[in-house]
Each structure stands twice: as C-alpha cells, then as structure tokens.
C-alpha cells in the first residue's frame, strides 16, 4: 500500500498540474479572443464614424470639403470678378494711403492758397493804394521791413500760408485715413461673398453633423454592444474554464481517487473497486469520452496502468512532459511577454 499511495499522490499531483495548465491555456485563449474581438470592433467603429466630405452651394459659389478636413471656397465668376474689381479699387485707395503725403499736402496747399490768393491780392492792392495815397509806398523800416501795415499784411499772409499748410497737412492725412477706411471697406466688401460662403459652410456643417452623428452614435452603440458581448463572452469562457477544471478534477478523482489518510478514497484505476473491473471508462472513443470530451492522456490512462513499470513512467511522462503543443503555446506566451 505504501507504493500504491505514492503513486496515487504522484498521479494527483500530475492531474492537478494538468488541470491548472489547462486553465492557464484556456484563460490565454479567452484573452486572445477578446483582443481580436475588440480590435475588430474598433476597426468597425472607425469605419462607421469616419468624416464624409460634403459640398455647400449658394448663390455666391460652392464650398467643397475634403476628407482631411480642408475646404475650398469656390466663388462664381461674377463674384470673382466683383471681388477683383473691389480689390483693385481698394488697392488704388491703399496706394493713396501709402503715397507721398507731402505731395498730397502740397497739392491741397496750392488749392487752398488758390482760394486765398485773390482776396490777398485785393487786400494787397488796397494797401498799395492806401500806402501810395499816404505817400508811404517807398517806406522801409528796420522794424517792419516796410510799413507796419505791410508787415501786418505780410504777417497775415504768412499766417494764412502756415494755416493753409497745416490745414493741407491735416486734410491730406485725413484723406489718407479716409482712403484707408474706404480701401479697407472695399477690401472687406470684396470678401463678403467668401464670408457668406463660410457662413453657408457652417450651416452645411451643422447639417452634415446631423447625418454624421447617427453614424458616430451607431458606431458607439455598436462598440458598446460589442464590448458588452465581449465581456459576457469572457465571463462565459471563464466560467467554462472553471467548469472544465472542475470536471477534469472530478474525472481525476474518479480515476485516481481523492483524499489522504483515513479519508483516502481509491479511484477506478487505483483500486478503489474490484480489480477485475478496474478499467478506464474514458478510453478512447468510449461513450464517456465522447460525452465528456476527455483529454487524451486521461482516455489512455488505462494503457499506462496496464503496462506496469513502463506504463507508469509513460503516465508521468505524459503528465509532466505534457502535450508538445501546449508547451509550445506556453513558450509563445513567454516570448510574447518578453516582447
């Protein structure tokens, strides 16, 4: 019995290792499946929520968008011509703004002086007549140059010239300011159609959003539903894995027994019953095997016990050497983890 207990423990160890190894493998399979499903759902969601270019057409032109988010404000030829005309006028006005203010001032000064000169000439003639009548036409003084009246008139004329110069300068600057305003206004006016196009684009964008929101919401709902399904699938697979482990454990216990000491119970293969009847019910292609889908090693366990010596080592080899495919999977797992 001492040999039989050791073998049973060894088998129990192997069976436990096996069932746990199966649980690990199942869990990895579940993860891989969830990753693939999630990737597929993301791809589907991206495809569903992708921007769809659209075109807005108004009386001033057509605005087209592209997939990259850009857009092209296309004006009608009439609007383009009008825009060009306005911009040409604006440029002309801007030319005045950046023109020589001195020349403009000079021109205005000459115009103002042209208005003032006749009156000045009349006053000068009156003064000349007055001075001649007073016998003072030839008067020259160090104080005034000529007579005080001539000085006063000359001073007034010079002041008028100064005022005219200042006025001309101010007016020139004012006109430049005015030209700037007009140019800016014309330039602004030239871009009104495009502003209108942009406004229409905004309106079109809102409308496009309505259509797009459905797609994006569908993709979101689809993703949410897929995630829920994926979570349910994972839970089911986890439960299935647990159940599989329980089942395998039960099968091991059935075949190899369970407990220890006085509580030890023998299994079908470990003498727990009639030795004549000690055979594996899960042999290959038996109805139990087909019913439980028992593992190969378990279904061939009867062969192990039937060939003493070598059979046990084969069993251990089977238990601890494991399935080559499973080991390869483990190796793959390790490699992926390292990567």
């Amino acid at each position, binding site marked *: 019995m001492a040999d039989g207990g050791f073998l049973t423990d060894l088998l129990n160890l192997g069976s436990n290792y096996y069932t746990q190894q199966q649980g690990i493998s199942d869990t990895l399979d579940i993860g891989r499946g969830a990753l693939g499903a999630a990737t597929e759902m993301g791809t589907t969601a991206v495809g569903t929520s992708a921007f769809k270019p659209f075109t807005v057409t108004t009386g001033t032109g057509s605005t087209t968008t592209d997939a990259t988010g850009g857009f092209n404000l296309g004006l009608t030829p009439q609007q383009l011509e009008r825009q060009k005309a306005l911009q040409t006028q604006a440029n002309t006005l801007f030319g005045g703004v950046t023109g020589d203010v001195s020349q403009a001032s000079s021109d205005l000064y000459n115009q103002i002086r042209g208005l003032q000169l006749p009156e000045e000439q009349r006053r000068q003639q009156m003064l000349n007549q007055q001075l*001649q*009548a*007073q*016998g*003072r*036409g*030839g*008067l*020259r*003084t*160090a*104080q*005034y140059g000529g*007579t*005080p009246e001539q000085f006063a008139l000359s001073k007034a004329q010079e002041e008028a010239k100064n005022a005219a110069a200042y006025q001309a300068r101010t007016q020139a600057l004012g006109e430049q300011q005015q030209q700037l305003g007009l140019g800016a206004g014309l330039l602004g006016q030239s871009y009104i159609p495009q502003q209108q196009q942009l406004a229409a684009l905004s309106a079109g964008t809102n409308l496009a959003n309505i259509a797009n929101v459905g797609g994006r919401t569908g993709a979101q709902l689809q993703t949410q539903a897929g995630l829920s399904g994926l979570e349910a699938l994972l839970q089911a697979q986890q439960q299935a894995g647990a159940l599989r482990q329980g089942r395998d454990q039960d099968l091991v216990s059935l075949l190899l027994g369970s407990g220890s000491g006085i509580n030890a119970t023998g299994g079908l293969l470990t003498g727990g019953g009639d030795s004549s009847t000690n055979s594996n019910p899960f042999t290959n292609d038996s109805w139990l095997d087909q019913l439980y889908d028992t593992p190969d090693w378990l279904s061939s366990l009867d062969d192990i016990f039937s060939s003493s010596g070598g059979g046990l080592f084969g069993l251990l080899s089977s238990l601890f050497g494991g399935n080559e495919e499973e080991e390869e999977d483990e190796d793959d797992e390790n490699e992926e983890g390292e990567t």
Partner: protein
Amino acid sequence: MAQQLQPLTIAAPGFAGINTQDSPIGLDPSFASIADNCVIDQLGRVGARKGYETVTTNGSSVLGTSKGIEAIHEFIEYDGTVTVFSAGNNKIFTGTTTLTDVTPSGTTITANNWKIVSLADNLFFYQRGHKPLLYDGSALTEAEDASNASGTQPQGNEVLAAFGRLWVADLTGNKHTIYFSDLLHGRKWSGGSSGSLDVTNVWPAGYDEITSIASHNDFLIIFGKRSILVYSGASTPASMVLADTIVGVGCIARDSVKNTGVDLIFLSEDGVRSFQRVVQEKSMPMRDISKNVRSDITYLARLQTLPIKAHYSADEAFYLLSFETSEIVYCFDMRSALQDGSHRVTTWSVINPLCFALTASGDTYIGKSTGIVKYEGYLDNTEKFQMRYFSNPMDFGNTSNLKFLKKFNLTIIGGQNTETALNWGYDYLSDYSKQSFTFGTSNIAEYGISEYNEEGEYSSSIVIQTPKVNGSGSGSVVTFGIEAQINNAAFSIQKIDILALLGRLI
C-alpha cells in the same frame, strides 16, 4: 502971383522895402527902388545895416587861399560846453578867434558845403559825397568809426535833426530817398527804428529831386525842386502819412530853408516863400515873401553857381538870402508882413558872406575869406560902407503938373560923422542932382556907463539929424535918394519933407 509951395511929406520913406515888380508910377512912396545895405529898423524905417567885425585872428594862416569859412555852427553840449565849428579850406575848425584844425586824420575832404546839425549831444556834419563826421564832445571822427555806429552812413547833402532822429537825403545818384536813423542815435542806420522813405512815386507833379528837408508844425516837409511833400506823424516814421502836397513850388537851395518859429521860409524857383503857421488847420497856405522883388530873385537864383546861403535872426528880425555868385544879399524884414503877404526887402552888397550862423546869444556869425566875422557895429571890419536909398518915381498924385522941388527937409536918425549925399532927379532919368553933406559928431548918452572925470555925455539918447537941402530942376515925376557912407554909426531915414512948386500942366 507966386504960387504957394506944396509940402510933400514922405514919412519913413522906403519902409515897405524895395519894390521892383509894380509900375513905379502910382506906387506908394513907402516903397523904394533901391535900398542897398539897408535894413528896416525896429521903428519901421529904412536904415543902414550893421557892419561886421572880424573875430578870427589866424584866418589867413589856416584858410590860405581858399574862399574862406563856408560853414559855421555853434554846438552846445548837455553840460553847457559851447564849441563853434567852422569849415573852410577843406578843413574843420573849432573856435572863433583862433581857428583850430580838428579835421579827422585820414579823412579826405574836398568841399566845405557842410550842413551841421546836433542830435542827442552829438554833432553831425553832412555833405554830398563825403563820409559823415561826428563830434561826440571829445573828438571829431568819421561817424562810421564812432562807437555804436551801425549800417551804412548815408553820404547825403541834406540832413535834418528832428523828431528825435537824423533825416538824410540828396545822395549822389539818389535824390529820391530819405534815410532816417534810429531814435536818438544819429550814427545808427540799421536796426532799431531806422529806415528809409523812397518818394519817387509820391511827387504830385512827376518826378522831382529832394533838395531839402525841414520840420515845421509837427510836419516833416520834404522839398523837391518843384514840389513839396508834407508828412504828418514823422515822430514814428513807420506810420507817418502824407498829409499834403504842394505842386509847382519847391526849394532850390538847401540852405535857404529857415525856421522862424512861426514860419518856414525857403527859396523856390519863383522867389522866397513861406508856410504860414497852421496849428489847427491841416492845410498849408503859402505866402510869397519876395513878391516885390520876384523877378530879381528868380533871375539871380538862376545865375548862381555857388551855394545859396540864408540866415534868420530873431534878434535882428531879418531873413538873409545870400547869392554868393552875384555878391548880393537880400534882406527880408520878418517883423511883419505887408498887406499882400510879402515882406519888406532890402539888399546888401559889399559884405559878400559865405555863410551865416546864429549863436545862442543871438549873435550872427558870418563866414568870410578872412575867417569868422560877427555882424555888429556899423563898419565893415574897419571900413565904411555905403548905404543907398532911392525912391521910385513919384508924381505925388498929380500926373500932369510939373514939379519944382524947392527944398528937402530930411530927418535922419543917427548918422554921426556920416557923409551923405541927397540925390534927386526927374522923369525917370538917372542923372541925379546931388547935394552932399556930412553930419556932425554927437555923443549918445550911454545909460549905465559911469564916466566920471570923462567928457560928459548927457545928450539925448537918440541923435537926430535934420539937414535941409535946396532942390533944383523940374519934371513931372520925381525920384530922390540918399547915399550915406556909414561910418560906425546907425543911420535911419525917418522922414523926408519936400517943398515943391506945382507948375503948369504938360
């Protein structure tokens, strides 16, 4: 039956001065045809002019062979220092008794027709083509070299100190511009209130040339040769205004313009004229002072090639006009005008003045070849001079009767030791009958002079001579005259009484 002698009294004969302009017949007997070396004395009589006394003692040495002293001016400085400046022999002198040459070294003088005026304690000398000279109380220099001098000193021939500044005109090549200096700075001709007035286009009767400038009655008077411009407000030249113009009358001699205080006298082409003093009225009426000798004056004026000089003496109450070229001086009595506005006029000969000057003391200095002489006494230096008075032809109001002059009763004031000749003639002829006589010596009481132990002089203060001369001949008109060799005594003709016999009608 013998006719009664008719007394024909001529009181103060010739007291109206010479009249050569009106028809002699019918002229007032107060006019004279000749009144040479005469003046109208203070009592309105024709009398002998004064002579002169030589003041300068070194004239011959400093004047050499030159004409003599041609300009004299008495300068009174603010501190009372009196200096008499004179010009002659192309030099400037100071002093009267001894002429001291003060001509600035380096100054070239080629004429002596200086006009000298004082302004602000400075004395200025101007004549055409010469740099103005300045005496500031210490030395005579060219004005441009004086301190504070500025601008171009105008080298004018006419200068006037009036309205607080100098006025200069009649420059070589510019006889139409008056330059005025800065206020109270006769040497500053730029800056301040200096300036100029070109009157080229102001003359009322075409272009004229400035000959003289004067101030009168707060007017600045600019004399052209044929026009006169009168400016008001000259105290501020920048605003002075032409107040009046006079066409057809001008001034032809710079030095003929004299202020009498109430009048402005000047020589025009047609005689001596004057502005009457006008205080309220703006108009400037003019009088013809030399109306009674107009032709003589205008004729002489045209003959002159040497400067015409004039002199006004309030003390002597005469205006002298000297025609140097003709060696004759017209003397206008300025005490009062005749009814027609003219003034009594006499002539002076022999004296031949080159210039005149009036001193603050009222003395009249005369420039002569010998230097400076003083108008005083009744000898020309030490020489007697002849006074002549001749009446115009007179018919005594009766043109058709012959007049037989039987007797002359003369009343002469003064005339001590004076050789006198009474002349009379008939019918415009100059071959006068003469009767000479000499007045005796008589001393005149000298009030205030104590002459104890001297010959007593207790006679009348006025010496009156009353010679009586018998006449001869006859004619319808009568001319008479007195020639007297003035011998250091006054001589005035007070009255001439003629006793005549009227003859038949002719």
